[in-house]
């Protein structure tokens, strides 16, 4: 059996940043396990720019951004294995993995960082009625075919869902010579970043139809047409509003689901809202020494924030290795953070005022679009943050910064509340 202090599951942006940070914070023996044939994860197929503005103060493509972290990993001489699938993680932190060269093998870890990322919601999970022909792809699958393999998955395209990958693919398919006829979005607002709507749809004259969904898929062998219809406030199609588009392709960009099958088998407690683990401010799960970061924890919009979060997970994993029990017995209590009234969840779920850093960024998402509102934080019943925001939307992650000194002023602190308040 192999032995490592820290095993990182996944070599995408989260796993890379976590491993580098763990090493720089004193952990010596680290192994990254990646199931694909190269490091970098989904960034490898994100050949558009816009990455790294926060992390490197410059605009990089996905592969360039990944390249920087892969460089750091190699500089730090951190071990990794490619084409390696983790089959199981036992409660004793024995990781069972498999690849072509080594067959089935086991690794005893002292700490584990979960960084498996997410997958796309499929047509089946969306319960879209109609035939099941070729020509229906999740936006990410189409992105891989076009950007990594150079293949066109279709010529005339309808896109359901205005998530960022769908918006990016609307532009990419157009640039590669396809005709994108329409982007339909079930909700009355887009789930993607504003900048992507402008740069990927508006600039190419691609219509975005809000409050619309696909109600039928036509074509027995290959997609021949898509029918969309307007939906009411109950999100059900309104009869009589159907519009038919002749096309050969339907791309789906309808949400991402953290890939937590391994976490669940390990006994990690999950949030029903994010479908990711519940973590404290060290990004540690309920299973001691198991940390989570990146899209496996909650789905991010910007890779820069993934890297930041993963670096924190890596640092805490290193501290856990170096200090062991001391890390846990640092005193204090885990104070729950409640997300209510417009705020859907927070990461972390709890914070320990004594163990926390001087400042801690709490990230969250809102459940609806709110204009001219306030993002508020309460310690017990006292409001300590009341920040005016012209607009907040579910597609853009929000944050508030909690300071240790502020929390220290509440010795009987039992609850932290994050909410959206109307002006």
């Amino acid at each position, binding site marked *: 059996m192999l032995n490592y202090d820290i095993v990182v599951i996944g070599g995408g942006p989260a796993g890379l940043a976590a491993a580098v940070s763990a090493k720089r914070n004193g952990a010596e023996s680290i192994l990254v396990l990646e*199931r694909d044939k190269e490091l970098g994860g989904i960034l490898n197929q994100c050949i558009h720019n816009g990455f790294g503005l926060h992390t490197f103060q410059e605009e990089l493509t996905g592969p360039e951004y990944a390249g920087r972290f892969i460089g750091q990993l190699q500089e730090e001489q951190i071990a990794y294995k490619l*084409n390696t*699938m983790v*089959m199981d993680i036992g409660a004793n932190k024995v990781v*069972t993995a*498999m*690849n*072509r*060269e*080594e*067959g*089935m*093998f086991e690794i005893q870890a002292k700490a584990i960082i979960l960084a498996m990322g997410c*997958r*796309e919601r*499929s*047509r*089946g*999970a969306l*319960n879209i*009625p*109609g*035939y*099941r*022909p*070729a*020509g229906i792809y*999740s936006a*990410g*699958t189409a992105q*891989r*075919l*076009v950007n990594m*393999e*150079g*293949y*066109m*998955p*279709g*010529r005339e395209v309808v896109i359901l869902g205005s998530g960022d990958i769908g918006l990016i693919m609307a532009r990419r398919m157009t640039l*590669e*010579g396809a005709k994108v006829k329409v982007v339909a979005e079930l909700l009355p607002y887009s789930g993607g970043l504003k900048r992507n709507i402008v740069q990927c749809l508006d600039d190419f004259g691609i219509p975005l139809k809000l409050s619309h969904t696909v*109600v*039928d*898929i036509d074509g*027995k*062998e*290959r997609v021949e047409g898509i029918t969309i219809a307007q939906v009411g406030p109950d999100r059900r*199609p309104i009869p009589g509003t159907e519009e038919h588009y002749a096309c*050969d392709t339907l791309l789906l960009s309808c949400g991402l689901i953290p890939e937590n*099958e391994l976490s*669940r088998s390990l006994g990690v407690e999950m949030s029903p809202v994010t479908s990711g683990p519940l973590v404290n401010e060290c990004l540690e799960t309920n299973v001691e020494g198991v940390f989570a970061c990146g899209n496996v924890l909650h789905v991010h919009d910007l890779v820069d924030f993934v890297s930041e979060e993963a670096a924190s997970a890596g640092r805490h994993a290193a501290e856990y290795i170096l200090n062991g029990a001391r890390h846990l017995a640092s005193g204090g209590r885990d104070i729950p953070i409640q997300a209510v009234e417009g705020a859907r969840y927070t990461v972390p779920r709890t914070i320990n005022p004594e163990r926390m850093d001087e400042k801690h960024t709490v990230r969250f998402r809102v459940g609806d679009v709110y204009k001219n509102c306030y993002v508020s934080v309460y310690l017990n019943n006292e409001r300590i943050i009341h920040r005016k925001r012209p607009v907040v939307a579910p597609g853009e992650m929000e944050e508030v910064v909690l300071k240790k000194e502020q929390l220290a002023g509440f010795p009987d602190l039992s609850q932290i509340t994050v909410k959206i308040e109307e002006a």
Partner: protein
Amino acid sequence: MYDVVIIGAGVSGAASARELSRYQLNVCVVEKEEDVCCGTSKANSAIVHAGFDADSGSLMAKLNVEGNEMMDEMSRELDFHFKRNGSLVVCLQEDEMPNLQALYERGVKNGVKGLRIIGREELAAMEPNISDKAVAALYAPTGGIVCPFGMNIAYAENAAENGVEFRFDTEVLHIERKGSHWLLQTNRGEIETTYVVNAAGVYADKFHNMVSSKKLHITPRRGDYCLLDRSVEGFVTHTIFQLPNKFGKGVLVTPTVHGNTLVGPTAIDIENKEGTNTTQAGIDEVIGKAGNTVKNLPIRQVITSFAGLRAHEDGHEFCIGELEDAKGFVDCAGIESPGLSSAPAIGKMVADIIKGLSNAPENPNFKGTRKGILDPKVLTNEERAALIKENPAYGNIICRCEMVTEGEIIDSIKRPLGAKSLDGVKRRTRAGMGRCQAGFCSPRTIEILARERGVDPSEITKSGGASKIIVGVNKDRI
């Protein structure tokens, strides 16, 4: 010139082919699709009925009970997944108890073994998620679940290994009498044969009516289904039916042999024999009705929905036999539920009929066993390590959700009647059948299919015909 041509490579056609390969007969199966198991056989409830449902004395009842009894041995001989999980017909109202009793009595009359009526307490202990309204159930321990693809493919492969020829993408257009034999016109030329077995599913009436004046009518009866992720494995462990009542027939909730949960079907009569499209109303009906027999159905775990067409003959009876006014033409028609359950017995019956007509001697080289695709998941870690050492492709996971290796996918392509398309690989290995529905693995499976078949990736289809996945290369039209 063949002795026997079987029209249709669904489970009835494949089982007939395998049973006919016991004899010295030159047999050919013609199939309009690119693979076996492309019609009714691929989209159904995947269950093996105990046999209490069909009318006593009917051929359906007889073949169902016989097929059920043969299933253990067949699954061993041909290596496909089958499990006797037992079925429960749930009675939701005290005043419907006489109907449950009647069903029990019919089952006993049909020869179903081990039937008993159980009370609410025992039912709730067997199925914790049973509806609070359930008052009693008919328990049939012989009820089972089967992999419908695995069973169909196993029969076909074994038939092929025993010398049966399969012609795919071959659609029969016309059948006529030519002297003492039959002439079949297809999209790929003419085929002559002494005997025809009409196992054409929803199209069986079309072929029957070409040769007989006694007309047959088959209605495609659509059934919509929803399939739930393996993450909720154990939600139910038995196949749960609703006792039909004045509000209708209800839907079944059942585990599959692979650990998914299946809910459905609807029963909607349509005109279009290719109408396998689901509808919103159909999906809504399935989800709504499932709530009659179980509580807390984890509907967010639906990973796909699909529809299949039952070949419903007007008299709701299996029509198996040589036609009186068309000698040598043997119908295997009206094979709707419990067709899958009955398939082993149907195959045997068809073979017996042809044997009686032809007096063909036994095939001394017949080999009745077939080995399925090796599933490394059933091996110990040590055995698995040894396998990978011998063939590294078994160490390379292609489908993450179902943990299918490259080794299994290559096997599925290289074996007799091997997979040619993504769906072909999926039905043989489960690659792409999991929660991401081929989002991650399809580009990699395309690559393996193209490499192993020696064709360009753009040639690879989802399910044959015009179902291409790649339509060109970047900027090729700019």
